[in-house]
């Protein structure tokens, strides 16, 4: 159960991060320009013009994102884009059309449209304002497929962020011949930060991993699953202690047959690790099932993908084995210290 909780929660947070990466990658964003500290959540839109004048900058897309409750049981990410934003490259319309700037129009990701049972031509009330659903799109990641996108100006009104944006997404011009991509990225970051003091230019991949929502998801997942893991370790320790207790005579036999205490310790530790591994495999099955369920629940479908990254599986199995080994230390130590004669006499 503990490993299931770990796999489910950490898998959730990682799929969330993965979706962010996918989103940046799909749109072709190279750099996100964001406030320097987490204390500020927005930047002045006036920086847009300065950014556009920089020689390394190809295109700039000002944007706002926020997590919104769209109905009693449907939450979704809401984006504010300009109608000409290059972010549209990340999505493809499957019904209707793009929205227009200055209009109370929205487009819905297919998952969200399905959850809300809305189609192009319908209206949707968001935080007291009515919006026309002008299109439904297919998004390359769960974050887009489950999102609502509206004109930046409408989003600014809705969020009381007039004149401000959450970030500028920047597409760089191609790197000059002979300059490495890493060097070009570093130079571009420095150039942007010099032009816009107080802001940070963060490579898109890094931004996908350390934006506040992803960090919060990671922290929650690790915090909760650490508690579950601790309970799991205590469970395995108890099982192993019982096993050593019940097999006292068996351990005595092994010692009588020439097994040294180190080998007995190793045997018990291998069993504990195997128990951890079995728990890990069950946990993966349970966790992936939980993720699948979450990916279909209206409350979470818009931010969770049922896909399960291989590194998470490997990480979960490694942690499960480590938990087993940790849990096995005390029982193994006790088993290894048993006197062979006392153990043989044990009933």
């Amino acid at each position, binding site marked *: 159960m503990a490993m299931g909780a770990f796999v489910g929660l950490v898998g959730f947070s990682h799929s969330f991060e993965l979706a962010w990466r996918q989103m940046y990658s799909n749109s072709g964003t190279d750099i996100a320009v964001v406030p320097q500290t987490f204390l500020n959540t927005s930047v002045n839109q006036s920086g847009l013009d300065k950014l556009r004048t920089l020689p390394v900058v190809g295109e700039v897309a000002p944007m706002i994102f926020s997590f919104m409750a769209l109905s009693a049981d449907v939450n979704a990410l809401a984006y504010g884009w300009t109608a000409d934003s290059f972010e549209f490259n990340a999505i493809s319309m499957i019904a209707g059309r793009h929205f227009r700037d200055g209009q109370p129009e929205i487009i819905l990701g297919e998952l969200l449209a399905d959850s809300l049972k809305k189609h192009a031509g319908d209206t949707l009330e968001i935080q007291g304002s009515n919006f026309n659903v002008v299109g439904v799109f297919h998004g390359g990641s769960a974050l887009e497929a489950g999102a609502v996108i509206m004109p930046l100006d409408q989003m600014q009104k809705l969020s009381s962020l007039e004149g401000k944006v959450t970030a500028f997404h920047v597409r760089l011009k191609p790197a000059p011949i002979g300059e490495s991509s890493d060097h070009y990225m570093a130079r571009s970051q420095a150039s942007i930060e010099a032009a816009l003091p107080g802001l940070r230019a963060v490579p898109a991949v890094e931004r996908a991993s350390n934006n506040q929502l992803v960090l919060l998801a990671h922290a929650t997942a690790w915090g909760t699953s650490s508690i579950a893991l601790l309970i799991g370790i205590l469970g395995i320790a108890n099982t192993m202690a019982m096993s050593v207790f019940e097999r006292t*005579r*068996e351990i*005595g*036999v*092994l*010692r*009588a*047959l*020439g*097994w*040294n*205490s180190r*080998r007995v310790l190793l045997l018990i530790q291998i069993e504990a690790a195997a128990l951890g591994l079995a728990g890990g495999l069950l946990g993966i099955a349970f966790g992936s099932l939980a993720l699948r369920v979450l990916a279909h629940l209206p409350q979470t479908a818009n931010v969770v993908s049922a896909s399960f990254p291989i590194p998470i599986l490997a990480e979960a199995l490694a942690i499960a084995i480590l938990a087993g080994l940790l849990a096995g230390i005390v029982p193994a130590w006790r088993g290894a210290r048993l*006197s*062979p*004669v006392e153990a*043989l006499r044990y009933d």
Partner: protein
Amino acid sequence: MTNPQLELRAVTKHYDDGRVEALRGVDLSVCAGEFVTISGPSGSGKSTILHLMGGLATPTTGTVLFQNALLGAASDTDTYRSQHVGFIFQAFHLLPTLSAIENVQVPMMAAKGADRNAERAETLLRGVGMENRLHHFPNELSAGERQRVAIARALANSPSILLADEPTGNLDTENSARIMKILTGIQMERGMTLIVVTHENDIADSAPRHIRIRDGRIES
């Protein structure tokens, strides 16, 4: 007498912080290739002697020597048990989750450089007439068969000493005779030292050397 293979010198063994005196100054020498039986009433200390000779326990006072070297100090008792000693118990003590052939392989895992293959285990089981029960689990075997597997297991690392603690204690007359025949046959054939603790007079008297023990002291 030739050089003793195993020797107990002025050995005492106390349990429960000295409240139980299992052995009270025992001197005993056993030569290589000897067949010795030890008998005595319950609690007389006969099993304790076997445990000390097998390196399973250490004396409270006195010394135990194997080939004139102090056991438990100069030599590693785990290595001593895995290389030089084979144990046979009254309750067989086979591992219930392992088949007969796997049980025989268990001591092989403890011996350095030991040949742990199944072929050798099979040969040993054939030697005790268990060729048709190789893959049977202990709960599928009769008491006599279990003890024969235990004998094969005791021989796994080709020890020079066989220590048997009441090996026929859980067997009927027919199986007791068969087990003793196997043990003495192995002792003769391999020239091993065989020390059998028993409370059965006919078995005790069948050995060339019979040691009687009472109240932690050797009587004769």
